[in-house]
């Protein structure tokens, strides 16, 4: 960990580690789109990304934009060691997305003390160090 200050124009958040099977996810996130794989044969969503549908074993899934709506499943406030890429302790949460899977993300625009299980949230995007974006979530109705 380094205490070196980032230039103010640069986001401190770590870039995602991008694998070939998940490149579509991060390419879309960089454009502000929250997407997932859906099987062309049986229509089931899958996450984390993978090349084959576990239900019918088809390859070549559709990449579809999700509603961006979800609910808070669980949430924590990591404090020590201080998470890399954050000025304040982040709210890390598991979000259950409307399409039926969980994803690790951050809750923004809400204090840790005010987070509740089942809270309705909506996707937003946050920049990373080298100009990528990651999906984060905000309480519905929060400006």
């Amino acid at each position, binding site marked *: *960990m380094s205490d070196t200050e980032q230039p103010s124009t640069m986001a401190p958040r770590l870039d995602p580690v991008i694998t070939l099977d998940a490149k579509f996810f991060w390419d879309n996130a960089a454009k502000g789109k929250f997407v997932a794989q859906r099987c062309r044969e049986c229509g089931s969503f899958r996450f984390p990304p993978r090349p084959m549908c576990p239900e019918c074993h088809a390859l070549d899934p559709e990449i579809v934009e999700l509603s961006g709506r979800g609910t808070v499943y669980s*949430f924590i406030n990591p404090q*020590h060691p201080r998470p890399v890429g954050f000025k304040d302790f982040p709210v890390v949460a598991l979000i259950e997305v409307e399409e039926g899977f969980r*994803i*690790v993300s951050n809750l923004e625009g809400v204090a840790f003390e005010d987070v509740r299980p089942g809270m309705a949230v909506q996707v937003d995007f946050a920049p990373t160090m080298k100009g990528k974006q*990651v999906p984060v979530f905000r309480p519905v109705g929060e400006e």
Partner: protein
Amino acid sequence: MARTFREAAIAGIGQTEFSKASKRSELQLAAECSKAALDDAGIHPSEVDGMITFTLDGSDEVHLSRCLGVKDLAYTTRIPGGGAAAVATVYQAMAMVNAGLCETVLIWRAMNERSQYRFGQPITMEAAFQPGNGTGSLLWCMPFGAQTPATWEALAAQRYMQKYGATNEDFGRLSVVQRRYASTNPAAWFYEKPITLEEHQASRWIAAPVLRMFDCCQESDGGVALVVTSLERARDLKQAAVRITGACQSIPRDNEVISNYFHRGDLADMPEARGTASRLWAQTGMKPQDMSLAMLYDAFTPVVFRQLEAFGFCGPGEAADFIKDGHIDQEGSLPVNTNGGLIGEAYIHGMNNITEAVRQIRGTAANQVRDADHALVSSGMAGAILSRD
């Protein structure tokens, strides 16, 4: 060697000192603990014909076998899944002996996990993203500040707290018990250093509202080794044979180690431990009440809660009361982690909890449990029952 079924046993155990700075290479630690385990069994190192460790171990089979002068190695393998590999090493050694394919299987795990690298610090585990370690989904955590094992565990355990109303103070009671065990175990890093619940509650938050510092295992340097052979041969060796009554692995659909969020089940549950439990009880015909003690992988306190429930020692959500009521104490119905565990003794990736079970069955443990006939050893995705011969 005839390929007929043979019962397997643990014939030898060995370890280095547990420290925060071993001041020597991981290979040297591996060689020292391996030699100690073979000496304990009374088997010449050259006779090793099988070698098993974790995918994450830093020493090479060939380099270690060169140290030991192994004359003809018949089998090697490595197990993925971080610490979940711990008891799986015993399972696979048992299977090789059962099948008549190996006579002397050496299991080792040696690490400078404090002085050379630290699992508890962010972004030090590049290996965690690489295929073959069973932990590839961790990359979905890193940009969000979930960068340590404590944060990954806390995301699941927070759901457990929601569902059952468990508190960090409940988790603290387990830590207090384990530190009490460690305080009377001369091999433990926290020997003669018990803690009170108040001290637990005053320790800093690692991941609020789930884990404080004293809910976390240590970061340690050290090595641990086991020698597995046939029960028949073990009976003629130096130590009392410790029978491997049963052992198995279980990785249910969509489960993975630590960042285990992507299956359809409730995260208050531990499906992999539940799978291990049902397979182990079915394989052996035994039940929770038959166990004299349990050594449950304790990277963090809540993992022990979920294992107690998954193995059926208490009902879902009842672990807090089970611990509060003294069941896991030395005189309780099921002493747990009697060496102090990974929290109190040392973190040798779960392997030092297996050697403790062996000592308990032999009757040579620092905190000896009365009438220790059967010990359950669990690393979540793998479990074993070790028994008096």
